[in-house]
């Protein structure tokens, strides 16, 4: 089993405050995961869990404090252009801010073709672009010469995917790609990811807070909380039978589109985010319904329970015994 992308012990720290009272926040804390070829891997969690920071570092838009990224067996340094030719592309959350409102959308495609010398003539370039657009259900005639505001959000997001495909990448990093797309069009984007995986063998790092689409589309999932991956494994195992108390809470808090599945229990909310970041031991200990004494002082180790990685003291006995 070869790995397309391997992220090892990735850590990103920000310092906040002034000279006297400096606080170091760890946005990503020794994050490790890998992505296989032709696989959709989800990084899920709430805002501030470090999923977007991780994506930005993988894309080279930000520098890691420590840790390595290995792509196709080669360690990567922060060299944006090398990255792209290596076959990594990205799509972003807000389709309306993905493209400059003062530029035509097709200019991005032509620029990419030019910059990477993907075609010799204008016609060749158009054919190449048209091929990519057809993959997402559009055509060159439909979009040539138009500005971003002439498309709907769903169309723009599909155009954004087509743009990412122009360089024939093997990995696409999608940061919350459907959260700003209309509900009626959301599935068209998600289904597209499946198609890219199955037909083109593209891997996708799907970053989202929406566990329902994550379950629908992805193969494996990692759930992050305050900078840590606290549970990682196949979606069936992690989402249908969550082991970490936080995964359980997160899974149960997704409002289900079924009036028969209304919430019955109540939740406790944290008052201050920063407190949880700075917490020693398990960061969820302050809200965990199954908290033990050890959780408040000792950081739990990454344990393997039935092939699922879980970062929780609850399971430390099972592993020993």
């Amino acid at each position, binding site marked *: 089993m070869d790995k397309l992308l391997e992220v090892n012990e990735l850590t990103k720290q920000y310092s906040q405050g002034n000279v006297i009272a400096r606080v170091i926040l760890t946005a990503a804390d020794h994050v490790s995961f890998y992505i296989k070829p032709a696989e959709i891997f989800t990084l899920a969690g*709430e*805002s501030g869990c470090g999923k977007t920071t991780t994506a930005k570092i993988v894309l080279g838009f930000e520098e890691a404090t420590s840790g390595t990224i290995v792509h196709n067996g080669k360690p990567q340094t922060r060299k944006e252009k090398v990255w792209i030719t290596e076959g990594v592309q990205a799509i972003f959350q807000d389709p309306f801010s993905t493209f400059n409102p003062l530029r035509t959308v097709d200019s991005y495609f032509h620029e990419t073709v030019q910059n990477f010398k993907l075609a010799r003539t204008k016609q060749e370039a158009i054919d190449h672009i048209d091929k990519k657009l057809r993959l997402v259900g559009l055509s060159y005639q439909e979009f040539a010469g138009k500005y971003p505001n002439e498309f*709907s*959000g*769903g*169309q723009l997001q599909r155009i954004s995917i087509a743009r990412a495909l122009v360089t024939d990448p093997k990995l696409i990093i999608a940061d919350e790609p459907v959260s700003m797309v*209309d*509900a*009626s*069009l*959301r*599935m*068209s984007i*998600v*289904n597209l990811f499946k198609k890219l995986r199955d037909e083109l063998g593209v891997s996708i790092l799907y970053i989202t*807070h929406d*566990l*329902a*689409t994550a*379950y*629908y589309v992805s193969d494996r999932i990692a759930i992050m909380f305050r900078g840590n991956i606290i549970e990682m494994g196949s979606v069936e195992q992690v*989402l*249908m039978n969550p082991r970490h108390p936080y995964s359980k*809470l*997160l*899974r149960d*808090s*997704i*409002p*289900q*589109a*079924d*009036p028969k*599945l*209304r*919430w019955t229990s*109540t*939740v*406790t*909310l*944290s*008052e*201050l*985010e920063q407190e949880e970041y700075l917490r020693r031991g398990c960061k969820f200990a302050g809200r965990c319904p199954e908290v033990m004494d050890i959780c408040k002082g000792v950081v739990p180790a990454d344990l393997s329970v039935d092939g699922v990685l879980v970062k929780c003291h609850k399971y430390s006995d099972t592993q020993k015994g």
Partner: protein
Amino acid sequence: MNNKLTVLRTEQLKAFYVLDVQGTQKVAKAVNEVDLAIYENEIYGIAGESGCGKTTLLKALFNDIILPLRLIGGKIFYRIGWDEEIDVTTLSPEEKRKLRLEYISYIPQGSMSVLNPVLKLRETYEDFIASHVSGQSREEIFELAYKQILELGLPKNVLDVYPHQLSGGMRQRVTIALAALMKPRIMIGDEPTTALDVVVQRGVIQMLKDIQKNLKNTIILVTHDMGVHANVADRIGIMYAGKIVEEATTELIFGQPRHPYTQFLINSLPKFGDKNVRSSVPGSPPSLANLPSGCPFHPRCPHVKEICREQMPGFTQLDENHKVACWLVGEGNHG
């Protein structure tokens, strides 16, 4: 029809945005001939995609029509007391202001527009109370505020801090507490939980439901998230291109949707434990400034008939709690 008391009712409500874009006039028909009847003691959900006019409808229901939004036609009735209905579109600004907060209150999506960032929450509360209370003494109201804050499970010292010191979820809950302070008969929420994380969203929704249960008032909740509607709403109106196209109890909307748009919307939602392929609605939502003829959904509808292109269907009453505007279901009653 039924014995529930209607607190808020609209008749053929039309509110359009009239914009002058570089010399040419553009009319966005954001709320187009909407008839609503919202009952006492219920949570009414309005669902629809971005740009379907749901936020505009809320503004109109809140009687807050400011340019470039214009009231083109129709009436909005509030029930004052037991048997008096008033058309609030004719009220003076001063009379409108009086109704706010005491009769009807608004919960915005972002709490920062309500909570003054440079004032402690206590001062924001004081301002609100000073501008809305005349009869009761301010001390009494303040006692009430404290009692309410404790009842809602918010920390005691929440009034002694600045808004930025609270997390987003806590701020949103304070905003809701403030909106509920005067025990308004109607509370209107515009995507009040959309910007929040799922766990926090659950806490905020929990609180909204508690408030409604205690006050036995009416909450009108707009959100695009069908999951939230399934969890809180008693009845749901599905909005498409400035019109309500289907209205029913939550159970019926999710169990037996009849409008093709509603059917698509419900069927496109992914569920845990079900990996079957789901497809989204074909095409894209229309622009409110350039609506298709007839039923606005017809260009995306797989069951389109000749008449759909020509005429907007009226509502067909399927049963007491379920009405649909679609030619496939029935002729509808016009006028």
